[in-house]
C-alpha cells in the first residue's frame, strides 16, 4: 500500500491524526460541535446516513490520496474503528 511521507510537525500518531480529521470533518458537514463527537460512538448516531457515509469515504480518499473501499464506514462504523483500520491496512502516516 502507499505510504505518504511522515511529517514531524505533529506528535499525534497516525490513528489519532485520522480521528481528529474525522471528528472535524463530521462536525463541519453535519454542523455539530466537535467536542460532542465521541470516537467510539456509531456515526449513525450523529445523523450520518448510509449514502453520507459513502460520500465521506470520498473525502477521506482525497485527503489521504488513496483509493479506499466505498463501504469502509459501513464496515468500520465508528471513528475509532475506521482510523485503526486505515492505519493497519494502508500504513498511512500523515502530513498536516
Amino acid at each position: 500500500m502507499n505510504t505518504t511521507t511522515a511529517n514531524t510537525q505533529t506528535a499525534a500518531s497516525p490513528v489519532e491524526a485520522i480521528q481528529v480529521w474525522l471528528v472535524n470533518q463530521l462536525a463541519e458537514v453535519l454542523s455539530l460541535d466537535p467536542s460532542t463527537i465521541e470516537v467510539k460512538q456509531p456515526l449513525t448516531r450523529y445523523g450520518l446516513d448510509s449514502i453520507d457515509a459513502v460520500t465521506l469515504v470520498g473525502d477521506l480518499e482525497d485527503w489521504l490520496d488513496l483509493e479506499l473501499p466505498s463501504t469502509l464506514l459501513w464496515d468500520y462504523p465508528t471513528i475509532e474503528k475506521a482510523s485503526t483500520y486505515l492505519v493497519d491496512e494502508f500504513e498511512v502516516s500523515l502530513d498536516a
Partner: protein
Amino acid sequence: MASLIEQFKQYWLAESLERDLGDPNDPKNVISFQQTAQIDESEAFPHDEIAWLYNWQLQRYYVPTDCGGEFTSFEEFVSFVRVMARRDLNISIAFTTLFWSFLTWMVGTPEQKQKLMNYIINDHGAMCLSYSERDHGSDLVGGDTVAVKVPGGYRFTGEKWPINRATISGLTYVLARTNEEGGNRGLSLFMVDKSELDPASYSNLPKIKTHGIRAADMSGIKFDNCFVPESALLGKEGQGLELALKGFQITRALCAAFSQGAADTTLRTTLKFALNRQLYGKKTVLDMLDVRRSFIFGFLDFLTCDCVIFVAACGFHVVPEQFSVWSAVDKYFVPVTLEKMMQDISVVLGARFYMRDEHDAGVFQKMLRDSAIISVFDGSSVVNLHALILQRRQLAKARARRKPTQLEPLLARLKNSFALDQPLPAFAPQKLELISRGADDVMHGLEPTLDQLKSLVGAADVNQTMLQEAIALVEVIREELDAQDEQIAQSGFEHGHDQSFESFELAKHYCRLHAGLACVQMWLHNRHQLGDFFAKGEWLVLCLHRLLSQKRLDLPPVAEAYYEAIAEEMLRLYHEDKMFSIVPFQLARSGQSSDSAEEVTPELQLQA
C-alpha cells in the same frame, strides 16, 4: 428514404416486436389502446397480454447471454421497453419487473443463476421487489422486516408494502435485517422462491386501488415466522443495502424508457387530433401558431430525453462505475421533463384529454395517470436529486483536477458511449460503485467537445451558422458549470437530509447541463449516420436553447426557420409511423395486424 435503422441491428428486435404486436389503434390487435382501456376500467390483471409477451420469447432478453439468455445491450433493451410502454404502461411495467433479475446476474451463485434462468425462460416466471414497508419507504435501513438465522436458513417476519406484483409472482427479492444491531451492514438480500415456502407462514396483502396502472397487482406480502432456506441468500449477509443501491442504479437509468413510451403515445394521439380537426375556416389545429409551437417544444423535449437515455443505456457498458451519478440524472430528468411535456400538450386536446372513451380510447388521460408513478418509484425525484447533491462537491473537485493525460482515454470512452456504430463491451455489473469518485464523463467532456466543435469551423459538411450558435450555447454551458462549481466550492457543504432549497435547484440545473452536453456529443459522434435532419443540427441548437433558457434569460432568440424544421421532421415521423426519436425506428404501420405472418422475416423469428 432508405431506413437508417437497417444498419443498426440493436433496433431490429424492437422493430420485430412492433410488427408482431401490430397497430395499437386497431382493436383487433393484442395490447391495443381499446383493449388496455377496458383492462384499466376493469382493474383486472392482464394475464393474457403478458402471456403473449412470454410466448413471443421476450423474456429471453432480460437474461444475459452468459447466463443462458439473449440480453447483450441496454440500448436494445430500452428500445423494446419503449415498444411495450407506448401501448400500455401497466403491462410493460408488470412484464419488466423481470429486470430485477439483474440482482442475481450481478452476485448470484452459478446455481442461483441457473435456477433463475430456467424460471424466467422456460417457466415464464415473474418476480417482484420487496423492499418498501408501510412506515419505511425510501429509508431502507430503517426497515422492520427481520430474517433471524436458524439451522438451514432464516425465519422471516414482517410486511412489505406497497409492492408491485407482490401477489402475482413466483419469486420475490426481499431486503431483511439479519443483524439485530441494524445499521448499514444490518440488511441482507434474498431471492425467495415462494414455492419453497410454507403457505401457512406467509400471505398477501389486498390489492391497492391506484390513480394509474389501475390493473396492476399493487399489493404486499406478509411473512409470519416464515422459514426461508439458506440457498435464497444473495451475496453475503450484510451486503443487502449495497446490492440494493447498485441494483437501483440499473433500474433507475432504464425507467426513463417507460416515460418515453407514454410520451410518444400522448404526442402521437394529440398530433392525430390536431391534424384532423379543422377550425375557423380552413385551418387545422396544427396550423395555429401557438399549438404548433407546443408540439415543437414537445418534440424537442423528446429529442433531449432521447440523448440522455441513449447515453445512459450505452454508457452502462462503458463506464458502469459512474452510474451512481448518471442514473440519478437520468431518473430525475427524463420522467419529470416528459411528465411536464405531456401536461403542456394536453391543452391541445382540450376537453378530450380528460375523457376516458373518446379519441383513441381515451389513451391520453390513461397515459397521464399511468406515467405519474415513474418519477416516484425506484427512488423518487427527491432521492435522486439528494444522491446527486451529495456527490456534487466531488464532481466539482474532480473537474478542477483534470489532467491532460486523462484526455485520450476520456475521448475513447465518450466515443464508445455515444457512437451508434461502436460495439458495446459486455455489461459488467460487478463494476458498479456506490460513488463515482467525481467522475462524470459527459460533463468532463465539455472542454474537449467545445474543441471538437471549433475544429469543424469551415468544414464543408457542417452548417456553419448552426455550428456557431451551438458553440455559443456550449460556452454558456461552460459558464453555468463553472459558476456552479465555484458556488459549491465556496458554500458550506452539508451532509444529511437537511439540504437547502438552493442545493436542490443546483442539482436540477446540473441535470439540465448534463442533458445539454449529451445532445451535443450525440450530434458530434453520429452526424454522419443519422440522416439529414440530425446532421443539419437545428434540433441541437433548439434543445440547448430550451434547456439553458430555463435559467438564462439573456440568450439570443433562435431563427423561426429552425422551429419549422423541427415541425417538418416530427410530421415526417408521424406520417411514416416512426418512433419520435433521434433514432427513429419503424413502428407498426397504421392498419398492420398483430402477428402478420407476411411481415415477419424468417431470420428474425424468435421462437425457441
